[in-house]
């Protein structure tokens, strides 16, 4: 399954305008400031991972980009076609798989489009299944198809692999990368799994207390193995997240939880 080296699109150096542009964005809930003075650009077709602890404001940022939370007149520019994959699949249980994918689509060949999207996530055999009969990984693939069928300029992934077992997660990583290469949407992956972020993204942003605390460009060729360069990035990112990395430790498997002797887990 080795792929030719993918040249990561660099940020808006010159000509193409960024897919996402946030300027000086602040969001408060009551007394709490969740996001403050954020400036973020995501290039066309760029894969960005957003890392942060719980409560760092990651989900708020994603919801704002999705249009689920109001931008309150601040500068938040996004493509018109956006789609989210949530942590839980959120399929409508009373609609069959293909109708879930076709949800909200209009036009002539809705069923064909849904079928094509489901074929891309290898679920052609479950078109007429009820969501309740799907496994966790299958349901999440349906959710991915439902997002992709809209041909989004911006694909928002809200910890979509967090609830999957480790093996399924690895397969999903490969699938997401393949689909991203094919459809080239800009991607914002919200995660708290450092390894997942390094494995997938062109660029990793670390969000801490509502600000971008660090930014790390990942220029490693894909597929990425946890080699020395990988580990160096990982150590730096964990440092930004306020986690001291213990001295030598065995290389973790891809996408696994990172457990620390203190018992703290950084996933």
């Amino acid at each position: 399954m080795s792929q030719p080296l993918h040249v990561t699109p660099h940020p808006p150096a010159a000509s193409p305008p960024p897919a996402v542009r946030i300027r000086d964005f602040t969001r408060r809930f009551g007394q709490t400031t969740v996001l403050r003075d954020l400036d973020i650009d995501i290039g066309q077709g760029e894969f960005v991972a957003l890392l942060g602890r719980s409560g760092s404001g990651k989900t708020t940022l994603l919801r704002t980009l999705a249009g689920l939370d109001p931008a309150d007149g601040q500068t938040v520019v996004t493509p018109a076609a956006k789609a989210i994959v949530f942590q839980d699949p959120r399929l409508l249980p009373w609609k069959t798989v293909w109708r879930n994918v076709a949800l909200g689509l209009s036009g002539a060949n809705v069923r064909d489009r849904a079928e094509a999207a489901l074929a891309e996530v290898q679920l052609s055999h479950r078109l007429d299944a009820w969501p309740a009969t799907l496994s966790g990984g299958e349901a999440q693939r349906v959710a991915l198809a439902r997002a992709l069928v809209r041909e989004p300029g911006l694909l928002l992934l809200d910890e979509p692999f967090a609830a999957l077992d480790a093996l399924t997660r690895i397969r999903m990583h490969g699938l997401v990368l393949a689909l991203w290469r094919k459809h080239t949407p800009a991607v914002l992956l919200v995660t708290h799994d450092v390894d997942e972020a390094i494995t997938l993204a062109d660029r990793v942003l670390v969000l801490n207390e509502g600000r971008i605390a660090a930014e790390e460009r990942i220029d490693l060729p894909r597929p990425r193995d946890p080699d020395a360069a990988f580990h160096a990035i990982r150590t730096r990112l964990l440092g930004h997240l306020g986690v001291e990395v213990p001295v030598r430790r065995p290389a973790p498997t891809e996408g696994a939880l990172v457990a620390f002797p203190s018992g703290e887990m950084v996933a």
Partner: protein
Amino acid sequence: MSLLTIDRKPIGPRLPRLQLSRARWLSPVLLLLLWELGSRTVAIPPRILAAPSTVLATLWEMTISGELPRNLVVSLARASAGLAIGLIVGVTLALAAGLSRQGETAIDPLMQIKRTIPSLALTPLFIVWFGIGEAPKITLIAVGTTFPIYLNLFAGVRGVDARLIEAARSFGLKGLDLILHVILPGALPSFLVGLRYAMGVALLVLVVAEQINAQAGLGYLINNARDFMRTDIIVVCLIVYAALGLAADQIVRSLETRALAWRPSFITS
């Protein structure tokens, strides 16, 4: 006995054993037999309670003569008319209250106040208002069935998983599409619970409503039978009421298996 319990190897196809300890049908049958026996030995005189065999014979006669079907149709029509009105009003109010805050503010307090008054307590008022014809009977059934429909559908609409609504909104659904594809299907299970209750209530109120000077219907049959001390006819009507209750339950059950085919419990079965 001990030998039997030790040796558990099946020896060929066995006849199903009569397990008296599990026979739930036994006590009802015994009661019927005792009842029949009591009637035949004049321990239970017919004016107190007719014998089961007499009841069966009367049921047959009343069916053949057309007396029972004719009155049954009258009662069914009353119950259906009342239930239909209750459904329309209940669904309309529940959707208005469930889908908008203003609707809830306007409607829900009134419904909660009304809920504290037992529907049957309105009987005298309805007789004063509507006389003793069909109107008070149907109105009583309509009022009684409105509430279970309203309460369950309202709760169902409000109970639809907010995460599903959010997901659907993120895929561009809004307004009528959101209601049709997400909110109503999500509220359907609760609605069907309400419908089942409403059918039970319709039957209960029917029994009482038909005591109001009915000229036809099961209640009329019972009243007449009471005047002539025909306990057999009274019991026949009770059987019919029970059958109606069972039938109503069956209707909702089959509706559920069709409309809720997506539920895990129905998928596996």
